[in-house]
């Protein structure tokens, strides 16, 4: 196929949306429907990889759709950060599709057509966010993502799902309407543009108090980044089926949040301006507090998905913190962490879903000795845990390395200690799960639980598609450790483009 890069860029957004209609149309034939979904995700990945090659060969790709309000356009372009996000999301969408076929079928979920249709809209919205050329376009797709994931969160249709959906939609819509929209409008009035500009859009002699206030509005308004106190939606969203939690609440939605924060910091404020704003320090401590508190809460959760959710909140704090540190190393660390955390966390969620489907367990206390029954799953869980903690041989090592470097560069000693302590907490709440699974008597616990599980030593893994999916993502965690070059180059070029050379 000989498509121009501009056309490909538009197709990344249009294709999933059009395919939504096809999915609905063939909804009564599950095999065709899922075939269409897989074909779409393959095509999307193909498009995104082509765009990546276009970007690395130095082409500028810009698309203008239409002018929604005078001087406010819906337009798209490609830059490294968005590319990174698009690559991760489209690759993991393919994997998640494979996984959810296994999961949804063996779990006999209802309304699967609605599920796949909403999933496709959500991915289209994610592509729109990733390639948005200005804040206005980004905001539109940000809201579409919120709304299209609501039916996914409330998929079960139960009272609990309804309540979870309320919190989910309530927080995400409220923060985006009250804070995010306000911040956008003020930015527009002050600077006269919403275009993502390397080095920022504000004048040098702008009123720093006012811009500092805008920064606070942005950080709170982008509720998807899960900064405390607006994090409650994420645990609430855990009522969703596991593939939804895996892709959307470990990758697409939350990453859309931190991606937006990074994008705003780098291309609206510019990291030079950020460093002199009066509110930056306050927000840094807030992010630090978010990291520690969420880790502490995670330790107390017995429900596996809830623990993973709080772990996500904590890890999102890392990315926000890195973005706000306003140092080159920290920005690189942040964007790398978007990738490494995505692979690690999606593996963990895949494992949680696999355990739920084949062993029907949701509580961590019941998973003692599960390693005998599901060795592959628990091994993958172990690798992914290592990546989240940030130790070799997994990809998480690199991103945490650069984040720490960032705190050193800016001499934020308190935050450095926060990061180190949080890593310890990560060990405390993630590792025991897989250790107990394989060595049920190694760590102390209730006797009867382990005995009951030990009796059942037959291997009974998750459905094959799900198993393949979680092996791929676990493997990716390791590959990111051995070959981090591409990821590093993408992350480093974010700042090159924004007019700063790395390593002054």
């Amino acid at each position: 196929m000989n498509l121009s890069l501009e056309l490909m860029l538009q197709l990344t957004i249009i294709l999933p949306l059009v395919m939504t209609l096809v999915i609905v149309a063939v909804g009564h034939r599950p095999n065709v429907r899922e075939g269409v979904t897989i074909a779409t995700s393959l095509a999307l990945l193909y498009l995104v990889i082509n765009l990546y090659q276009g970007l690395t060969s130095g082409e500028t790709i810009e698309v203008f759709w239409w002018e929604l309000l005078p001087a406010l356009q819906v337009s798209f372009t490609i830059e490294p950060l968005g590319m990174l996000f698009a690559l991760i999301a489209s690759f993991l969408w393919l994997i998640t599709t494979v996984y959810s076929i296994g999961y949804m079928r063996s779990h006999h979920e209802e309304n699967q057509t609605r599920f796949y249709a909403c999933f496709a809209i959500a991915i289209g919205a994610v592509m729109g966010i990733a390639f948005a050329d200005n804040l206005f376009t980004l905001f539109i797709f940000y809201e579409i993502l919120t709304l299209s994931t609501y039916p996914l969160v409330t998929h079960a249709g139960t009272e609990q799902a309804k309540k979870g959906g309320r919190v989910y939609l309530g927080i995400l819509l409220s923060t985006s309407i009250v804070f995010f929209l306000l911040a956008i409008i003020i930015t527009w009035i002050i600077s006269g543009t919403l275009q993502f500009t390397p080095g920022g859009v504000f004048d040098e002699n702008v009123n720093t108090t006012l811009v500092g206030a805008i920064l606070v509005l942005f950080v709170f308004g982008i509720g998807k980044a899960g900064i405390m106190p607006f994090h409650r939606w994420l645990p609430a969203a855990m009522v969703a089926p596991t593939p939804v939690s895996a892709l959307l609440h470990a990758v697409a939605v939350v990453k859309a949040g931190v991606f937006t924060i990074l994008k705003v910091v780098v291309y609206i404020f510019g990291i030079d301006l950020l460093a002199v704003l009066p509110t930056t320090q306050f927000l840094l401590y807030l992010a630090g507090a978010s990291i520690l508190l969420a880790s502490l809460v995670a330790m107390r959760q017995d429900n596996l998905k809830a623990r993973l959710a709080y772990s996500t909140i904590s890890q999102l704090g890392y990315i926000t913190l890195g973005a706000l540190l306003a140092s080159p190393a920290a920005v690189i660390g942040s964007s790398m962490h978007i990738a490494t955390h995505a692979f690690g966390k999606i593996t963990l969620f895949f494992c949680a879903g696999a355990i739920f489907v084949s062993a029907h367990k949701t509580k961590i206390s019941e998973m003692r000795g599960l390693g005998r029954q599901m060795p592959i799953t628990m091994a993958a869980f172990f690798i992914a845990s290592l990546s989240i903690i940030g130790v070799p041989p997994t990809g998480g090592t690199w991103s945490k390395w650069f984040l720490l470097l960032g705190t050193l560069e800016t001499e934020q000693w308190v935050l450095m200690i926060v990061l180190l302590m949080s890593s310890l907490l990560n060990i405390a709440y993630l590792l025991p799960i897989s250790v107990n699974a394989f060595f049920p008597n190694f760590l102390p616990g209730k006797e009867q639980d382990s005995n009951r599980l030990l009796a059942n030593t037959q291997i009974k893994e998750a459905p094959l598609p799900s198993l393949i999916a979680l092996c791929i993502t676990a493997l990716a965690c390791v590959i990111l450790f051995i070959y981090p070059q591409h990821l590093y180059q993408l992350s480093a070029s974010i700042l090159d483009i924004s007019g700063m050379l790395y390593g002054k």
Partner: protein
Amino acid sequence: MIAHLPILQVIVPLIAAPLCLILRRAHLVWLFALFASGIAFLTSILLLQQVMDTGTIVYELGGWEAPWGIEYRIDKLNAFLLLIITMISTVVLMAAKKGIEKEISSEKHTLFYVLYLLSLTGMLGIVATGDAFNVFVFLEISSLSAYALIALGNDRRALWAAYQYLIMGTIGATFILIGIGMMYQMTGTLNMEDLSRRLPEISQTRTVFAAFAFVIVGICLKLALFPLHLWLPNAYSYAPSIVTAFFAATATKVAIYLLIRFTFSVFGLTFSFTTLPLQTLFIVLGLLGIFVASTTAIYQQNVKRLFAYSSIAQIGYMIVGFSISSVTGLTATLLHVFNHALMKSALFLALGAVMYRVGSVDLKHFHGLGRQMPLTMAAIVVGGLSLIGVPLTVGFVSKWYLLLALIEQGWWPVAVLVLLGSLLAIIYVWRIVEAAYFKPPLANTGDIKEAPLQYLIPIWILILANIYFGIDTRLTVSVAQAASQSLFGVGL
């Protein structure tokens, strides 16, 4: 023909109304009324085009020069309003045949169309005319037919609602008449153009102050500004659904038009906003309206009533935009007049479809409708999202301009309050969504089918318009901006 467009705009529905009585057969009457309204719609498009190209059109009725004769004066502002009214009236009429089938007894069907066309005539007349007394005449035509239309409902409470509206509406109209009388006494003219020239000379007299107060209070009664809104919830919830859809989208908008016309054109900006503390008063009442009405909406069990309260809240937004008294503020108000007309007519028509199939619009009867009437409920969801102001719907466009106007003036607290107010909309819209999609259907409702096409088509025309004008804002924004610029006398 083209030269006579201003009068044709008003006269076509006026003549069509009694002709309905001759036709008698309900089906024919419906087609004829639809045809008349369609002609009015076309006329308004031509008028708007002409005004945007060549500027204000002045038409002397019967060739009598003003101030002796009555003059119709179409500028950008009223051309825009004429378009809104005729557009909504035509689309709503498309659903009317099915709509009144169950809600109005069959011997009154012809009467319904007569009244509907008269009411339309009244509203178009108010907007088109350039004569203050003529405004009152048309106001009475539209109001009297409105009272009768509301009373047509099968629900006996409709009579009480119509009576309430009659009392309040008559007080409002009388106030306006008194105000106009005082102005005539002081200036000796009823022509708005003349009034605007002569009033400034005598603006410091007590009579003019009193005239202003009477006119403004009268109009505020008509537009259901908080706390003068008490007639509206009952009138909207007990009137036949079609009537509600028509009035919710047009009647209050006409009153907003009058408010703008009298404050900006007749009394003039300086008098209205500098000499008198209209700004403070309106901003407070507007905000109070947003919060009180939205909060009340949250606690309603009857969905028609819920959206009636939501209408009062939306009027609050228009008033806030109006009271900023800047070009952007007025643009926001005009945009919201257009956009809110689209949202509310779609929503009330969808409620009419629910009424047609289910026979009730109580929240508990919405249980399970998400599956039984998927297209109707999807329309309510999209309309609701537009009400909340989600991007790519019209609600977002007007909210954007309102915030822009507020922040331009540095009214931060008000901007934040407006945003908080729109959160309340999420709550009341989502109560309906949850009822429709999460609750199982009530046991004894039997088989509920999707609404008939005659309902679905107009509903979805309006819903798609909600999305279309949320994406392509060139027409609405340019007209609203041009209208508000000309009212402020800039860019001419």
